[in-house]
Structure formats: C-alpha cells, structure tokens
C-alpha cells in the first residue's frame, strides 16, 4: 500500500489500529467497567493501574471500554457525513444553474449556524444515546465538507472528458459515479478523516455536557462523570487524564494519516519535504469544538 510509504501516515495508521484493537478486544481483557471494585477516588496502584473513579470503578477498564462506542460513533458519523456531503456536492456541481445556487445557499446557511447550541437543542428533544448523538453530529457537521467537495466537483465538471460524456448522452448517474467521483477520491478521503476527527471531538463534547446516556461507558461519559465527581476539586487527575489522552492520541493519529493522504494525492508535496504538505489538509481541516 502506497499510503504506508509516508512515515506520518504509517505512524497514524499504526496508532489507529492499536485503538481499533483496543475497542475490539479490550473490554474482555480489562474487565467490567461498571463493576464496583474498591474505594472511590483511589490514586493509581498495583491493583488498579489508573486508580478508581468517584464511584469506585476501575478507571483503566472504563477507559478501555469507552473506546468502543466512541470510535464506532466517530467512524459511522465520518462515513455518513462524507456520503451526505458528496451527494449534495455532486448534485449541485452536476446540475448547475438554480439547483446549484439553492444548494450553495443551504450549505452557507448551515455553515453559519453554530454547531454546539444547535446540537444541544436537537439532542435535548431526542432520547439520549449514541444514535441520537450520531444523528445530531451528521446534521451539524455535513456543511463544511459539502462546501469543499462542491468546489472540487464543480472544477471536475468542467473537464473535457466529463463534457464529452454529457454530449455523448451518458446517463447522469454514470457520469457522476464513473467520470467525476474517482477524481474526488483524495478530497473524499481527506473529508472523511476530517469528519471523523470532528465527530469524535464533538461527540465527547456533547456527552460531557450531559446529553449522552450517562449509564453507558464512553470516553465522553467518562469525562462527564469525572466533572460530576469533582475530579478537579479533589485533585483526582487520573479521572480525566487517561480518557483525554486517548482522545488526543486518536485525533493526532487522524491528522498524521491526513498528511499521508495529501502526499498520496500530490506526490510533489512529499518531494518538497515539509513544504506545502498541509495543502488539502488545510482546506478540509477546521477548528473543532
């Protein structure tokens, strides 16, 4: 695989595989995250490597168990966001005219609506749980990627071979899927990574606010309980540092993979070394909340 030739991407993928493995088999190794195993607020010890929570649960088990829901929701939202954004972007670029104008307006309006407050209002009216969180994140997260993809798709739409296919009378769906889509793959990949990064961070944020299902162990609810159990006031750093470090590591790994995708899309970036190796990544990346 060519992606592995980039050192950044290889490191990122290795990290991600590690966390995927953790999410897959971790809960069997680290034990039951909800079991009450000792006194609350105990610092790390040989019995509990990362200490115990404010309710006397094993923090290591909770950190490991939290990976599963958090990563699955992040991945699913990433796929859904890119699928929705690509569908809207390709429709706009292919149809052009007033359809393009209308969709561009919808995209721009959604970009202006602040994500967190909208997500809170939406999530508050739906039953708490991962499904609600995922739905809300797709609604608040698609516009950015639709904007990037629409610009790229519009450029591809003007290429001669696409024009030729249109004049040749090919079916619009075929033109979009066979002629246009393959040229968008690098941007799609970058969008997917950006959307997944966003989904993990925003999901944790919403759950931290208390919009998740507090009975379920995820990285977000871990931090929610850490705040609720006064981790900061009692100085129990082990309640929030492990989970937060995992989130940060996953985010960093995704950034690294994105750099590799950029180099793959444009080999000149790799040759120039550090150079402009952040090109597409910068277009697709955005500050997160």
């Amino acid at each position, binding site marked *: 695989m060519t992606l592995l030739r980039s050192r950044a991407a290889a490191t990122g993928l290795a990290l991600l595989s590690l966390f995927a493995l953790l999410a897959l088999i971790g809960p069997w190794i680290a034990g039951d995250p909800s079991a009450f195993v000792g006194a609350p607020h105990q610092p790390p010890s040989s019995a509990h490597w990362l200490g115990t929570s404010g309710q006397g649960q094993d923090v290591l088990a909770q950190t490991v168990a939290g990976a599963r829901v958090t990563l699955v929701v992040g991945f699913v939202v990433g796929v859904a966001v890119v699928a929705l954004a690509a569908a809207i972007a390709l429709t706009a670029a292919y149809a052009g005219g007033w359809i393009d104008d209308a969709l561009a307006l919808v995209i721009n309006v959604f970009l*202006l*609506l602040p994500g967190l407050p909208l997500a809170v209002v939406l999530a508050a009216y739906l039953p708490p749980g991962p499904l609600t969180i995922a739905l809300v994140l797709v609604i608040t997260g698609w516009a950015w990627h639709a904007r990037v993809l629409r610009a790229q798709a519009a450029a591809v739409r003007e290429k001669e071979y696409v024009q030729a296919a249109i004049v040749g009378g090919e079916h619009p769906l075929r033109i979009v899927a066979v002629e246009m889509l393959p040229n968008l793959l690098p941007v799609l990949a970058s969008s997917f990574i950006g959307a997944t990064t966003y989904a993990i961070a925003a999901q944790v944020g919403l759950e931290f606010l208390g919009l998740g299902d507090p009975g379920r162990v995820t990285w977000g609810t871990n931090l929610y309980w850490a705040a609720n159990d006064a981790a900061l006031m009692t100085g129990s750093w082990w309640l929030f540092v492990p989970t937060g470090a995992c989130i940060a590591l996953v985010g960093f790994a995704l950034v690294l993979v994105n750099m590799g995708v950029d180099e793959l899309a444009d080999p000149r970036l790799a040759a120039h070394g550090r150079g402009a190796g952040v090109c597409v990544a910068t277009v697709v990346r955005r500050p997160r909340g």
Partner: protein
Amino acid sequence: MRFLLRRLALYLIAAWAALTLDFLIPRLAPGDAAQALIARSQGQLEPEALEALRVTLGESDAPIHSQYLAFLGRTLTGDLGTSAAYYPAPVSTVIATGLVWTLVLAGAAVVISFVVGSLLGALAAWRRGGWLDAVLPPVLALVGAFPYFWLAMLLLYGLGHHLGWFPLRHAYGDAIAPGWSASFLASVVRHAILPATTIVVATLGGWMLTMRNSMIAVLREDHVALALAKGLPPRQVMLRYAARTALLPSLASFGMALGFVLSGALLTEIVFSYPGLGLLLLQAVRNQDFPLMQGLFLTITLAVLAANLLVDLASAWLDPRVRDGARRSR
C-alpha cells in the same frame, strides 16, 4: 457595496433559518418528549411557567401557521419565554447576564488567537525551514487534536489547583463588588487568563497553518519580488506587501470557523464555571430548560452572524477587489 448587500441577505436568511428551526424542532420531535416533560414538571412549576412551556413546546390547539406567526412576533420583540431553570426570570434576562461574559472572554481569545496565529504563520513562511517553521506546526497540530475542555481541565488542574497560580472558578472574586474599579478589573483579568489561554492554544495552530500556506503562495508573486528588488525594508515587504494579501483566505475562513470556535469556547467556560453562555447551556441541559436552550441557540447564532458581518467589513477594507467588486467584476 454589492458584496456587503449579498452577505447581508445571506445573514438574514440564516437568521430566519435559525428562528424556524427553533420553532420546528420541538414540534417535529417525537411527540411524547414534550408531553413527558410537561407531565414531569406538573407540580414543580408554577401554572404560568407550565403554560409558557406548553406554548414553547408547541402544545397548543391553534393551527400551525398561526402558531408560527405568533412565535415570530414574540421572538422578534425579544420575548423568548420563561426560563424553567431560573424561574421566574425571562429567558432574555438570563441570557443577557451570560452574553457579556462570553463576548468578553471568547471575543478577546478569538481575536488574540487569530492575530498571533496569523503573525506566527507569516513569520514561519517568511523564514521557511527555520526553527519556527520546523517546531511549531507539529506541536500545534498535536495540541489542536485535544478537545478544548480537556485542555481546560489540564490547565485548571496544573496551574490552578496544583500550583495555585490562578483562581479556580467564576469570572471575578466573590469579595469584590462589580464596577469600574481597578481591583474589580484586575480580578476579571486574572480569572480570564486560564480560560482564554485554553481557547488561544487550542485554535492557534489552525490560523498559523492557514496563514503560512497562503503566505508561501503570495511570496512567489511578482509584486513581492519587485518590492524586495526596490530595496524596501524586509519587514515592510513581509507585513504590508505579503501578509496583507495572504491574510484574505484566513479572514474568509475566520467567519466560517467562528461557530466552531465558539462551541469550544462554551465548553471551556463550563470547565471554569465561567458565568457565560456556556454555563447557561449546561444549566439548561441539566434542568431540561427548553426555552433557555432555544433562546441560547438563537442568541449565539445572531452573535455569530454579527461577527461575520464585521469580518466582511474587514475584508472589504483589506481587499480593493471586494470593495469595488461591482465596478470591476465581469
């Protein structure tokens, strides 16, 4: 002028969309959510609050279009309903208390981050391959991967709780009466340092990378080469010839990123118990105070739109092509 009018039209549409979402979401939500909430609040809330809640949640017998018109009329006159968490205060009064603090904290932090980040980006591109260019981007990329509020917890624990350098919560000391006194302002600044640092550190990398990449492209342009060949001082070339042009893409993304940055700022406020809109949002979620949540969504949207308008004015000032767009465009 035409550019500004177009943007203004977009903002009006966005404001209308936010209003309409505020109206529709409670009515499209799975029916029993509102019912259950009203049933739960029965006993806890005064009859008037219950009635206000019923109206907000769309539990009304009136046809939907007249409900919509009544809703628009109420909202446009500043009546956002009654808060359940801070009963009997009206939502607009509750939000007004938080808005000032969020504007001060997030406003200052976002502007500082943008200015410092863009300057660092310009410097990194100007001395490409130098130590600034080599060290900062990867470090800031790592820090940028942290959730804001986790960074906030780390700072609060390390610098506030452990070392005791900064106050742990609130926007000013309990013992000081709010007012324009020097001790009050000093207390406000001391309380704002940690939350503001969190927001600045978390967003710095994005602005730096955007500025660096656009600056690298601008430095290849002829007008920069000409300015250098003329023998202008390098600092003047960097700031007035290259950075001014390179700032335009950053400025364009600044407006769009604002909503996201603000979301992070709200979560940061919660960690520091900073009495802004973020803390109100937390109270609204905890108490299932739907009118307050919706009022916050509306207020924050309007704030983002206003900030975007300011950004547009700034780009019109920086970019003659935008200013004279009507005359020169095709």
